[in-house]
């Protein structure tokens, strides 16, 4: 199963179980994996390059990954997907370590922004003609 799909499924299940911070974390991971799939398609790679060869691709920064895939998010303000991009851009791996409870709506927005029908993964899969 594709990694992003696994993370999306996990995020939805965690959200249903009210594990909001973990759902939020998994949704961001799903976007990271989807972006890396898009980079591979964009750069015509058949495997993920080693850190020594492409250090800039070994990042969790979604904006930098999007740029590497040829997507300039800042230029999408008139695209309906833009609020979803802004939302997933709030994702930080470090947030998963926070002990504060995360409100359901915040986690739901992250999951929908990543994995929803108007979310960034759906948008990426169509743009890059990847298997949904």
């Amino acid at each position, binding site marked *: 199963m594709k990694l992003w799909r696994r993370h999306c499924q996990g995020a939805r299940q965690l959200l249903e179980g009210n594990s909001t911070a973990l759902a939020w974390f998994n949704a961001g991971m799903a976007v990271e994996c989807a972006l890396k799939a898009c980079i591979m398609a964009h750069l015509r790679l058949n495997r993920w390059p080693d850190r020594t060869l492409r250090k800039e691709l070994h990042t969790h920064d979604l904006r930098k990954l999007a740029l590497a895939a040829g997507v300039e998010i800042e230029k999408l303000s*008139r695209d309906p997907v833009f609020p979803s991009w*802004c939302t997933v851009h709030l994702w930080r791996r*470090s947030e998963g370590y926070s002990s504060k409870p995360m409100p359901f*709506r915040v986690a739901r927005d992250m999951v929908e922004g990543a994995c929803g029908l108007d979310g960034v993964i759906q948008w990426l899969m169509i743009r890059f003609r990847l298997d949904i």
Partner: protein
Amino acid sequence: MANDPLPSGYLEAGNDFFGALKRLGLVPEALFWAQDKTIDEFVLVLITSHFDTKGPKEIYRLLTQAYNLAATPATISPFIVRLHSPSQAISEAILHSEFSTSGNFAYFTLNRGDLTYRDKWIYTAKYKNGSVKVKKLSPVDRSRQWKRFKENVERLAA
């Protein structure tokens, strides 16, 4: 300020953005420029209690709508606006920060979470320290404020 790392024009643009938000009816708990160490970029941090109740996506939807209708400055894309809830750990650290006014310093720098910012970059911050009592918005007032903001943005689009 000659040694200010904030790019030229950002401070003025942020001030215009703050004015635009107020005109639209969104009054942030805090708004300031900061260096985001995670992404290595400057971000405009907007702390609002609507984050928890309305969610980031709806706030971004309205900010984007306002941006596309030129109701907010063209230089401040919603994408560089980093939203936070006042109840998030990083926001609590920010809102409990106190700048010392003693000494002859040109500016004060603070590090909170992955954000670094200076006192000069702050447009508003309703500090929760002992000297300033901050009245928390009641749910009714918060809901009223949100309704006003949403209606103002949607009126622009009509």
